[in-house]
């Protein structure tokens, strides 16, 4: 196909990853109470295109993602659970998905409990995802999709140096309404330039 570098895959979730304030680690069944708590909230579901989940649905979802701990092919996705320092309480999750092996593109996201909003945790966790994508996996491009009304998430993208590349009008029908989508993206050389400038 091309003489482009190959991805460094498979990538397997192993040791917890520490950031300034957070730990990104594997989800466990001990997270169920908190997981079901935020997935049950309509204001969380509204922006992530799912109905609010019952506890049973949350448990099924959580078990699905606990079982997936590696990415290798296009479409593979893993979720990191996020906690603050040594406190094991789950405050949210950050997913990485291989969007395209051929085009070395990943998709990232973030879902946090509303009670921890406004502390920069999503930005801090997502910055770690970008490091994994570019420095570990060897991605060339990373994208994020978000509800066009989700100002908080758009601001996370901007703080990460991502560029808004799309505003799709009414491309999703969910929970009784047509929704619009933003797409943000960043390339590896842009990421490195931003990182070097500090």
């Amino acid at each position, binding site marked *: 196909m091309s003489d482009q570098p190959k991805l460094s895959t498979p990538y397997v979730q192993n040791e917890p990853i520490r950031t300034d304030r957070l730990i990104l680690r594997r989800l466990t069944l001990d997270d169920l109470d908190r997981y079901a708590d935020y997935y049950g909230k309509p204001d969380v579901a509204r922006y992530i295109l799912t109905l609010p989940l019952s506890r049973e649905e949350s448990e099924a979802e959580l078990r699905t993602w606990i079982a997936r701990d590696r990415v290798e092919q296009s479409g593979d996705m893993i979720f990191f659970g996020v906690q603050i320092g040594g406190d094991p309480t789950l405050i949210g999750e950050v997913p990485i998905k291989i969007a395209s092996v051929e*085009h070395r593109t990943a998709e990232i996201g973030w879902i946090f409990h509303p009670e921890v909003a406004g502390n920069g945790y999503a930005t801090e966790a997502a910055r770690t995802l970008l490091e994994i994508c570019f420095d570990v996996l060897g991605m060339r491009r990373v994208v994020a999709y978000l509800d066009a009304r989700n100002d908080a998430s758009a601001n996370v993208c901007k703080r990460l140096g991502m560029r808004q590349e799309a505003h799709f009008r009414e491309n*999703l029908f969910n929970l009784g309404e047509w929704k619009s989508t933003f797409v943000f993206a960043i390339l590896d050389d842009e990421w490195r330039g931003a990182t070097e400038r500090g």
Partner: protein
Amino acid sequence: MDEPAKLNLPFEFVPIDTERLRLRHYRLDDLDALHSWRSREDVTRYQDYDVQTREESQRSLERATARVTMAVQGDGFVWAIERRDDGQVIGDIILFLDSIEHALGEIGWTLHPDYQGKGYATEAARGVMKLAFETIGMHRIKANLDPRNHASEALCLRLGMRREAHYVEDFWSKGEWTDSYIYAILAREWRANQ
């Protein structure tokens, strides 16, 4: 609450007649016509396929003729664009079903360079959009194009489409990282323009 779109599926292939054109199902004897543009570098430069051999064009033709029903995501139609006055096949046009849940479609067109600049692609695209919105019941139609393809972009604008995305270097094509534009139009915007 908004109304979800109600798609009229499964939908069987239909020909479309416009003022100067007949959009019809490809036939296996259209190979000469199809290959006349798929073998040209100036046509394939901005497409997602390379210049084709006659055998590759033959396979493309066979795939196109096999598409007769739109029922599930990924299904689509390919119409040969035939000029009504002389029966000449001058290009083709596609409509694909991107999503049933969200009633999304994608349109795309190719015209032999000898027949460009005469409004044929616009006329064909209007015919397909009318079918997509008014008969199949799609909510939104997009077109994906290479930003260097100015003729296609001009056509999107004539159709009333809006540029909704500029993806920077999102795919590797013909030896280089390439950008994409996505244009789109909603059913109600289409109706308002009629």
